[in-house]
């Protein structure tokens, strides 16, 4: 896999495989291309060379099966500020299917169950990150891709992410996490560093 940004070749001859129940941590200083690698794998941008395979066959051209399983967590929350939590989640349901009845349980676990009527604009940055976490928990996607999950999360939030991630891996899901902070995760962990 090789990707250029401007003149610098961000990474080349990168090779890794991700199996169910495995976590891949992408390490590297800021600007080393972690986000670009994740966006490339997800299909948001194209690599110069290299290919992604999903369940054995090349991904290029038939992304739909892969995207049904993919859940994306990035700097930006991915929800509309003017809508409240429930309206956002109802729209999310038209994109990814998740079961209705577990919504309140997930929100309660994330401490958001009392904030469902407020527009997202009025939530704190930490709470908005938890809303994005709610999408991860609700979705049935087996592949999680998280870009810097720990930004503006306090201690409790951090341990929440660790717990949620470990559960996901325990259930046989896999995840790719790009971060430059340490991650205490129990389970099968692989590391790739871009620097």
């Amino acid at each position: 896999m090789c990707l250029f940004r401007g003149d610098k070749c961000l990474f080349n001859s990168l090779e890794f495989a991700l199996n169910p129940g495995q976590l891949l941590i992408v390490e590297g200083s800021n600007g080393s291309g972690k986000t670009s690698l994740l966006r490339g794998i997800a299909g948001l941008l194209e690599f110069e060379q290299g290919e992604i395979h999903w369940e054995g066959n090349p991904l290029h051209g038939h992304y739909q099966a892969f995207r049904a399983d993919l859940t994306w967590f990035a700097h930006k929350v991915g929800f509309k500020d003017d809508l409240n939590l429930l309206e956002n989640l109802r729209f999310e349901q038209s994109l990814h299917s998740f079961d209705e009845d577990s919504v309140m349980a997930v929100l309660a676990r994330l401490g958001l169950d009392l904030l469902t009527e407020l527009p997202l604009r009025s939530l704190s940055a930490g709470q908005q990150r938890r809303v994005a976490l709610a999408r991860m928990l609700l979705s049935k996607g087996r592949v999680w891709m998280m870009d810097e999950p720990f930004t503006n999360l306090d201690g409790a939030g951090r341990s929440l992410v660790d717990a949620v991630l470990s559960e996901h891996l325990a259930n046989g899901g896999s995840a790719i996490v790009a971060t430059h902070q340490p991650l205490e995760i129990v389970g099968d962990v692989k590391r790739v560093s871009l620097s």
Partner: protein
Amino acid sequence: MTDTRPLVPSLWSGFVGIVRRDILLAWKRPGDVLNPLFFFAMVSTLFPLALGPSSEQLGSIGPGVIWVAALLAALLSLNSLFVSDFEDGSLDQLLLSPQPLTVLALGKAIGHWMVSGLPLVVISPLVAISFHMPDQSIKVMAVTLFFGTLSLSLLGSIGAALTVGLHRGTALLSLLILPLAMPVLIFGARTVSLSTSDDAVSAGVYFLAAYCMLALTLAPFATAAALRISNE
């Protein structure tokens, strides 16, 4: 969650979902809807003030003025179509959803049309009356605007998708879309002015409907491709 493949919601629920979301957003932010309408009304009243109240002259320029004002009002509201999604990250979620992006792009364009095009069609008779236009041409005006604004929203969604990442995209969007919107303007305005002198108007209306169908089928593909490119 062993190896059960998550099922993808139906296309229709994707389409309806995005249209409902955009209308809800417009409902929560009425300014985005009303500003283009006021702009349309104001631009249409500029001309009588500028050209004097003589009614027969107004009657002849009425269709053209109303159509140009509708075109500009539609362009005004178009360039923010994808910008808010781009900034809060929901565009990434749209691109990464299992729903085909074409359907979602169509939903965005229809949502925009319902929020900006339809209100224009609804208030166009009021403005038409102020131009002393005969009754049947007010009806023709509404019909042509109905198809015209839908085509504009679809064409404009391509332009909006192309310029979403660029920070000075506003003027550029009109530069891209106006030449493409010329046929709609030509047929729309001329058909209405034909109806004032009660000539046959069906040819123009049929063309506008045909162009609208063409835009309805082709534009979403171009918008989807443009979104993927500018969101890289």
